[in-house]
């Protein structure tokens, strides 16, 4: 079996424990001064890649794990985190803050990156929690002409470059088999990402990080979609509290329920 060369795209998003707020202009979510971290689905992709290597689950072994992120300079922080978790190298593609790429542009960029790096497996998060598009992996597989298995909850390797991917579907699970090269997107039950250890955080500082621009991939940040408006979900009407049974009865009467 061929040795794996895994490409793992990662995205910097608002930390998933932070409550997002819509900006004043209603064009998006407020990002200034808000804690950012790695898209949680991408953490699963990094973890899975590192586990495939550590557990020697692929017969041909893992030759390389490259993480790539297109985003502002601060995206380098999450690339370092990914390397602290065990990735070998990183590529940072500088995109100005606010000039976000659409899924198709990202897919085009990743296609070039996969070709340049001779990747035979791309593991992506099924979606990023900022725009919830859930498109990039599928588009990438299309552009590359590779088989894809989305929303993986288990990844296993067999002989002759075959890969089995289990995915959770309504009311059960489905197992797909395909041959490398292929695209996999991750879902929540795939694994439990590790804490990066301090020695690995230190080592990650010395791992190589290539700095690139969109032009290096022949991409422009072209936009086909326009965000018309972003609004908060309607505020849930809080339930009222009554003091006692009498209070309850009079409230029910007031509402015409009894």
């Amino acid at each position, binding site marked *: 079996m061929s040795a794996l060369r895994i490409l793992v795209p990662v995205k910097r998003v608002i930390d*998933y*424990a932070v409550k997002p707020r819509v900006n004043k202009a209603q064009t998006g979510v407020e990002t200034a001064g808000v*804690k950012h971290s790695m898209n*949680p689905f991408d*953490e699963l992709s990094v973890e899975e890649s590192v586990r495939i290597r550590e557990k020697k689950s692929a017969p041909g072994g893992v030759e390389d794990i490259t993480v790539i992120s297109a985003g502002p300079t601060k995206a380098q922080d999450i690339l370092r985190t990914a390397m602290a978790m065990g990735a070998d190298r990183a590529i940072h593609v500088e995109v100005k803050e606010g000039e976000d790429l659409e899924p198709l542009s990202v897919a085009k960029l990743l296609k070039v990156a996969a070709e340049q790096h001779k990747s035979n497996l791309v593991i992506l998060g099924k979606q990023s929690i900022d725009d919830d598009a859930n498109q990039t992996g599928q588009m990438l597989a299309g552009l590359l002409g590779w088989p894809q298995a989305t929303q993986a909850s288990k990844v296993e390797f067999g002989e002759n470059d075959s890969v089995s991917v289990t995915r959770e579907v309504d009311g059960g699970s489905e197992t797909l088999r395909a041959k490398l090269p292929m695209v996999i997107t991750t879902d*929540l039950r795939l694994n439990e*990402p590790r*804490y*990066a250890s301090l020695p690995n955080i230190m080592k990650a500082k010395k791992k190589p990080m290539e700095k690139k621009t969109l032009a290096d991939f022949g991409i422009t940040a072209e936009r086909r979609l326009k965000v018309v408006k972003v609004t908060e979900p309607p505020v849930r009407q809080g339930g009222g509290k009554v*003091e006692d049974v009498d209070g309850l009865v009079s409230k029910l009467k007031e509402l015409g329920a009894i």
Partner: protein
Amino acid sequence: MASRCTRAPALARLATRGPTAATRLGRVQPLPRSHARCLSTTRSGWLHQTAPRQAAQVKFSSETYPELKRDSRYSQLRQEHVAYFKGVLGSESAIIDGVTNDNAADDIEPFNADWMRKYRGHCKLVLKPGSTAEVSSILSYCNKHGLAVVPQGGNTGLVGGSVPVFDEIVINMSRMSQIIEFDQVSGTLVAEAGCILEVADQFLASKGYIFPLDLGAKGSCQIGGNLSTNAGGLRLLRYGSLHGTVLGIEAVLPDGTVVDDLGKLRKNNTGYDLKQLFIGAEGTLGIITKVSIQCPQRPKAQNVAFFGIESYEKAQQAFREAKGHLSEILSAFELMDGGSQELVRSVTKNKKPLEGDYPFYCLVETSGSNAEHDSEKLSAFLEDVMEKGIVADGTLAENETQIKALWAWREGITESLGHLGGTYKYDVSIPLAEMYQLVEDTRARVDAAGLLGETDEHPVRAVVGYGHMGDSNLHLNISTRRFDKRVEQCLEPFVYEWIQERQGSISAEHGLGLQKKKYIHYSRSETMVQLMRSVKSSFDPVSGHQLSLLHRYPYTSCAEVMITGIH
């Protein structure tokens, strides 16, 4: 019930790890390895799987401590008393009446038994006043009729002070929970005493401020209870003690007099600062009804590192380095020994943050206003302690969920121990150099007495230590399979004498309560105790046949206590 049912926030957090269970809705929920935001997954019900604490199984304090005798000079509760209280409180939900209603026993139990299931009283009447005026009417009536009372907040106190011993009336403050006002410029918060700490903090968070106190019981404890125990908590290192942050107090004295010292300004040097006496008085001087407190700006950037450390010696070095490198951004430095972490793991079944096992772990938190600036300092610190070999292994939280999950390994200890059986708790202050020695000496002693072991015939499961290292405050916990008098006799007064020899405090932050009242002389001289007695009698005069109303049996009816304690 309300006072006891929300007690597991830290564990709920522990049940989740990594990004697997966060929700964008603010609080981290106990979801099973799933991403709440993108999937509609049901909650795991972690909390429901653990057996609810049955108050009924708790032994009565009057049986555990037969030397405590009800003082017959206190009146027995009668129907006419209840009728008066019903008149004062009006609403039915403000009173749980087990005097005239035999079916109320189940409803009263949660107010009778303490959080640790170690102390339990025989109370038959719970009053929940809704205003200062109601508190005043209740106390003045009790004072006239010789009825003993016990003030109760969230009932999370750890020394048995928040529950009755005999038939004292419980005055529960949960209905006085309003936030009254907040000054955006000065950061002064005014709230009623029954306001839950976490509720106050979440309100402040929405204004960009933070409550200057944080502790594991935040989801249940009340700010009035926090003041009454002078709780220290996790960030005393950063924000200082309540004696510094509390600006004003409104309280009701035992005779019903309302003391209005609800100042909102930082400075007021006109005579004695009497409100300070209520802080840490454990309800012996009066009932706190309102609080005004100075709140700092909420830090914009927070980082948490978690270390595995080979020796207590090295933990001290790590603390020194942390102060040196992090100075103004250091907001917590907590110590946990290997035993305590093993117990948390055995209860939560979570994977430990570090690969190997270490005898000690430290949690270091920074809070600052500039993430880049803080990260730079923190990296330099981490590199330094790793290079010097002070720290054997460690991790740095990469996101909010990891921050919470790491904290849960510290905050979840008390709760995990609670799930394993009874715990003898000693909350002590000892000079840092000798702090952990107490745990080792105690372990050796319990072991030598044949009480410690892995099998069921040994009452003690483990002797562990953890605490606020930054404040020289150790929690010595003896985790047992069941409360056993032999264990207590092995521990007391041994632990207190050990501390006295080192001029430490036998109660650093939990108070005296019922547990430690008679041991006050290990940490206070006779002169100090005398002065305390005279303060007590100025606030709660005992004359002729009249009795001291507040602080009840531990303080009034045990002969030994009369001599040594704060009467």
